């Protein structure tokens, strides 16, 4: 029981750590703010979701072996935290992207920029 629980938790946590590290790595590897946002938002959301899944799996194992309801409470609160994180991260990234574009930060190496064409300004970097 203990070994199986440890292995499942370890697998989930390794996936979470892997994606969170990729999110941090993408902050340094990509050239401009939009591409950085791709890596940082997606990978950190996914990694944190998997971290939450590992806590849920751990609490489920504990609940079935010990049988105390406070592990069920832990599961419910983790689910609430994950749902809030899923919604707020995407919306926050969208807000930062829009603000960056409105404050005239051009995407580097962009092949096309329809939003700047619509606003009628020329692209500075190409």
């Amino acid at each position, binding site marked *: 029981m203990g070994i199986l629980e*440890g292995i499942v938790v*370890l697998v989930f946590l390794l996936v979470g750590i892997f994606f969170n590290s990729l999110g941090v790595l993408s902050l340094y590897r990509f050239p401009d703010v939009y591409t950085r946002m791709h890596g940082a938002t997606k990978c950190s959301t996914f990694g944190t979701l998997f971290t*939450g899944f590992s806590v849920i799996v751990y609490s489920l194992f504990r609940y079935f072996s010990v049988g105390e309801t406070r592990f069920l409470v832990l599961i419910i*609160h983790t689910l609430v935290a994950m749902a809030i994180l899923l919604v707020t991260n995407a919306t*926050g990234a969208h807000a*930062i*992207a829009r603000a960056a574009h409105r404050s005239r930060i051009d995407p580097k190496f962009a092949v096309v920029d329809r939003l700047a064409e619509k606003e009628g300004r020329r692209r500075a970097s190409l």
Partner: protein
Amino acid sequence: MSITIFSWTVGIYAVLIVLIFGRLIAGPTIPDRAVALDTMNSLVVAIMIVLAAVYDSVVMEDIAVVYAGLSFVSTMFIARYIEGGM
């Protein structure tokens, strides 16, 4: 056994947060720093979720929920500030 794994995970996430500080300080534009701060916030939420399992306390999970909401509000404020609406 799981508790040991969780503790090591918290250590690794703490190292990742320290690594983010580089982008937070060096970022050429303000949106870069905002993105770094956003990533840092979601890592802090991950740490809080894991620590709630380590210390077996549900209160820490509630703090994670509130922290996620507050970090979203602060991100919105920073975005509005970058746009120049304030």
